[in-house]
């Protein structure tokens, strides 16, 4: 698998740049994705989304459906796109260190 380097740390990623393992996630990873996504600053709202995603994933072994993410954080889908220009999956889940969902989705 390809590797990316950030701040002297090396991460293994898949073809779309998602981290290989949820447990290898660190604050440096957040900064790496921030740069990749072109996000100016990781603010409290970003952090709220990331915390929610990670807590949900820890409990359920899967990312939450988008509507659950919206409801729990109180952010409308449009606002999530403002926070993460690539969207809840390719932006937010990537920053939170979650794998991509697969199947009929």
């Amino acid at each position: 698998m390809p590797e990316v380097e950030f701040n002297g740390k090396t991460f293994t990623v898949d073809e779309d740049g998602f981290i290989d393992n949820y447990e290898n996630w660190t604050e440096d990873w957040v900064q790496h994705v921030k740069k990749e996504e072109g996000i100016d600053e990781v603010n409290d709202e970003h952090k709220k989304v990331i915390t929610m995603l990670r807590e949900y994933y820890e409990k359920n072994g899967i990312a939450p459906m988008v509507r659950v993410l919206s409801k729990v954080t109180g952010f409308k889908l449009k606002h999530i796109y403002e926070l993460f220009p690539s969207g809840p999956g390719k932006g937010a889940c990537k920053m939170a260190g979650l794998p991509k969902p697969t199947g009929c989705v």
Partner: protein
Amino acid sequence: MSKLPKSDEYFSKIKHDKTSGAEWMDTPTVIREGMFCYAAKPASVETLGLPFPREWNPLHEDWKLPENWKEIIHKGFRDRLERFRSFKVFMDICVRCGACSDKCHFFIGTGDPKNMPVVRAELLRSVYRNDFTKVGKILGKLGGARELTLDVLKEWWYYMFQCTECRRCSVFCPYGIDTAEITMMGRELLNLLGLNIDWIATPVSNCYKTGNHMGIQPHAFKDMLDFFVDEIEEVTGVLVEPQFNKKGADILFITPSGDVFGDPGTYTCMGYMILLHYLKVKYGLNITWSTYASEGGNFGLFTSNEVMKRLNAKMYAEAKRLGVKWILGGECGHMWRVINQYMGTMNGPADFLEEPVNPITGTKFENAKSTKMVHIVEFTADLIKHGKLDLDPARNDHLKVTFHDSCNPARGMGMLDEPRYVIKNVCNNFYEMPRNCIREQTFCCGSGSGLNASEDMELRLAGGLPRANAVKYVHDKHGVNMMACICAIDRAVFPPLMEYWVPEVDVTGLHEMVANALIIPGEKEKTVDLRGEDILDKEKVGTDEFYTRPSFSGR
């Protein structure tokens, strides 16, 4: 995706006279980004115990094949010619009349001659002639034969995963050749060398481990349905109480896990839940969900016969364990090809279940006599026909609806009239797309058979063009703003397809519309539908702000 031009520019570049003048065999295949899916992850191939799990990249020269790969393919080819009479016949009887050539959505959308179904089949057939027929051995290239080389293998892989196994071409074949079965054989052969795509391998592995493609564990599955329970109560004022793994229930309900997770399929899922609640309250019908058999879809169909059989078995094992009478299946596409065309001799006969009878109407579902699984659209149509559902179609008056016949229910089981009957009973504005692209001639969504990943978005948007074009026609002519469909892949892939070609049209499952029209005992006065859209203001087609798709290319 960001590299894709705007739709009208893309459209103007599609040409159908791309040949250089050289024979197809002398035209090299170039594997291009945007047109293929990533390679299967080794962990997923390993879970299933399938051969040669490894990391490989279609764009690299070295695909890390086993040394004896030619021998493996030759033997695999021979085995399948012996095991599957249809495969042998399909290899032999094509006269290359070309009736199928312009019927494929991928050929129409890409203009690539190797996407003509006849040429796609010739990719395999040329090797068949070379290896297994005297004529091919003697005449060689003159007789349409060629040796299996590394380039040929790569060409197989590229084009076997540019076919959605939709079988539109088969409808036009005077010999009745089922090109989807040729693609299936091609994919089986490629799987012998570990050459699957990840969008198929990982869902299959998830399904094998946890019971569904998404990998939703039992507690999470319940959690998701509980979320819908709250949402339904908010909109309707009614508390629905889905049952899970209930022994002794009358019927087991199974739908694709995409409905539980991905929008807008989630609204279809809420639709099922409302209908099942209604039937329980009104008629005492006892229907259960399962957190073990929590997937109706079967990506095994896109891998091999053996894998398909393994995944299909769990639904029947669960039905047996729970002691239900029969199984009710949700709005899934390819699930119905597996059930209707293979189940009987694959995991069947399921004679521990009863021949399905609708306990409310007494209707015998003769067509499900052997499989013991009834399609929910047929079930609902039967309930409506007998006046068992209290419906107010005016609640869907803000919608102008067209119907996309999902390939497999249409061509794989002949379900053509039931969905239309249901739609006409739950809404007042229904418009058909042109007749040569509906019913058994329906155009594929362009993303079926496991090609609904995001890295192949260009392929998907090109392949979906013929369908989108027909939707645009009814949008322009009648103001259609909603396309109904009965397949979870459809519901997942149409939103970005519409976004690209016809952004004014949204996507719904049938049972979302059924539930919106249904008058539920004890409901509060309804002002919004399941998406939170205002149903009282007929002029305004409102949108749920939680659901509104912002302008973005793809997903």
